[in-house]
Structures are given as structure tokens and as C-alpha cells.
């Protein structure tokens, strides 16, 4: 390969990389954060994809919905653990909150609040292109 061909290939490669990164679109990074209040209530937030890719072994955030046995009540639980391993959790049977929790997907930014009794008092889920998918 001549010097010119090598130079041309290098330049094309650089241009391709530059062009790709220039049009990547908005990307949001939201690691898991926990805010505690003195009365035992608090708030946790974080994006599922960001939590999965954080450089530690403790970060995670998620919600699940369940109904056991003959119960007619559907329950949901949201939980989060930050980089320091602080773990927070809340439970709800509120159908409006459960409807929102059902919105959780692969790249969701989750925010939830709890009260002193461990009940969820709010749930806020956002799915957007800017949140990195959790895979791999």
C-alpha cells in the first residue's frame, strides 16, 4: 500500500468517526441518587441504563408489580440502591401509581418517593431516546 493510500484511508476513518459522534443525539446520564428526609420519607431517582453501567456493583433501580394467591389486590414495589449501597424501597396498592409504574421500560428514568411507613407517595417514569438502554 502506498503512502497516499494509507493517508487517504486514515483521513476517511477520522471523518467517519467524527461524523458519527457529531450526530449522536442527546444522551442523558442519571446515576441513582437517594435523598432522605428527617421524618423517614425520601426520594430516589436514576435511569435504568445508567444504573446498569455505573462503575460500581451496588447501583440499581427498578419496580415490580405482583399479586399473590387469591388476593384481589395488585401491589407494586419500587427499589433503588446508590453507589454507596444505600437501599431504599416503597410499596403501593394505589392503582394510579401502579398505572404509572407499568410504564417502566428498558431505558426509563425512574423517580419515586416514599413516606415514613414505606408507602410510595409518588411515581414518575420517563422513557426517552436520551436514556441509554440497559443492554448489554
Amino acid at each position: 500500500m502506498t503512502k497516499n493510500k494509507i493517508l487517504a484511508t486514515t483521513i476517511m476513518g477520522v471523518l467517519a468517526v467524527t461524523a458519527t459522534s457529531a450526530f449522536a443525539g442527546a444522551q442523558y446520564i442519571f446515576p441513582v441518587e437517594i435523598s432522605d428526609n428527617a421524618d423517614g420519607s425520601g426520594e430516589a431517582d436514576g435511569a435504568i441504563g445508567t444504573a446498569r453501567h455505573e462503575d460500581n456493583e451496588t447501583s440499581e433501580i427498578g419496580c415490580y408489580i405482583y399479586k399473590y394467591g387469591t388476593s384481589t389486590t395488585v401491589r407494586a414495589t419500587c427499589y433503588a440502591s446508590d453507589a454507596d449501597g444505600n437501599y431504599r424501597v416503597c410499596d403501593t396498592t394505589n392503582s394510579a401509581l401502579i398505572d404509572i409504574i407499568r410504564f417502566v421500560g428498558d431505558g426509563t428514568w425512574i423517580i419515586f418517593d416514599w413516606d415514613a411507613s414505606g408507602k410510595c407517595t409518588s411515581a414518575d417514569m420517563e422513557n426517552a431516546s436520551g436514556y441509554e438502554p440497559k443492554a448489554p
Partner: protein
Amino acid sequence: MRLHQALIVAAVLAAISIAFLVGRASSSDAPSAAPAPAGAGAAAAPAPLTGPARSGHAAAGVDRGALRQVIREELSAALDDRDANAAAANEPEPEAPTKANLAATKRAHAVVASARKAGEWTKADAKALRAEFKQMNDAQREELITTLFPAINRGEIKVRYRGRPF
């Protein structure tokens, strides 16, 4: 037919009947009321219930607008009652405690008490609790969750694995 529906139909029929009877009574009064001369007799006539008179009926002391308003309010109240009763009817009946779920609840509370003593929540605890949960009723689950979750949130019980609490 449901009791609430029957009550609403009865209320509507009663309202219509009252309106009809009052309307007839007013109509029969109207001719004598209309030509009444001004003077002491006219001044003694009862005033309309509300607002300006729209017809001769007001002279007899009955205002159609007021009557409509009363009927509207009664119907609205009846519908509200029906909605409230329907919502109450959709509430699940509390499950009665059984020997089996009482035993499961006792074991579940023992798991939580043990975790509180150890200051940690393990995967084995989560698995044990999930198994007991399936045999407990809603009230029993509620009581257990409102014991365990605040203790975790206050840091009295540390979750020692990654993933859901149970």
C-alpha cells in the same frame, strides 16, 4: 335491577310527578292571580322563591327555575350516592384469617425479626418471605411490609444482595 338503580328511577319519577302536580296547581291559580287588582291583596301575594318571575306561575309562589334547581340537586345527590355505593361495592372483601395464613404470617414476622436482630436482609430472607407472602392475606402483607420497608429505609436492616427486596 340493582337497588341503587331502582332508587334513582323512583327519585326521577317522584320528581317528575311533583313537577307535574305543581305545574297543574300553578296553572289553575294563574288566571285568578293574573287579573288581581293592585292594592292590599296584591301586596299580600307571596313572593317568588328565587329570581324574577318568568310566567304566571310565579304569582302563585312557585318558581319553575327554583323547582328545576331542586329537582336537579336531588337527582345529583341520588347519582352521587349511587357512585359512592358502587365504589364501595368494588372494594375487595377483606379475607378472613385462616389457620394457614396465620401460621404463614407468624413465620414471616419471625423472618423479619431475625433480620432486624442481624441488621441485614439476605437473599435467603427474601426467598423465605416470598414463600410466606403467597399464603398471607392482604391485611397481613400490608402489616408486614409496613414493618420491613421502613426498617430498610432507616438503615436498620441492610440489604446484602442486589435486586428486589423479596
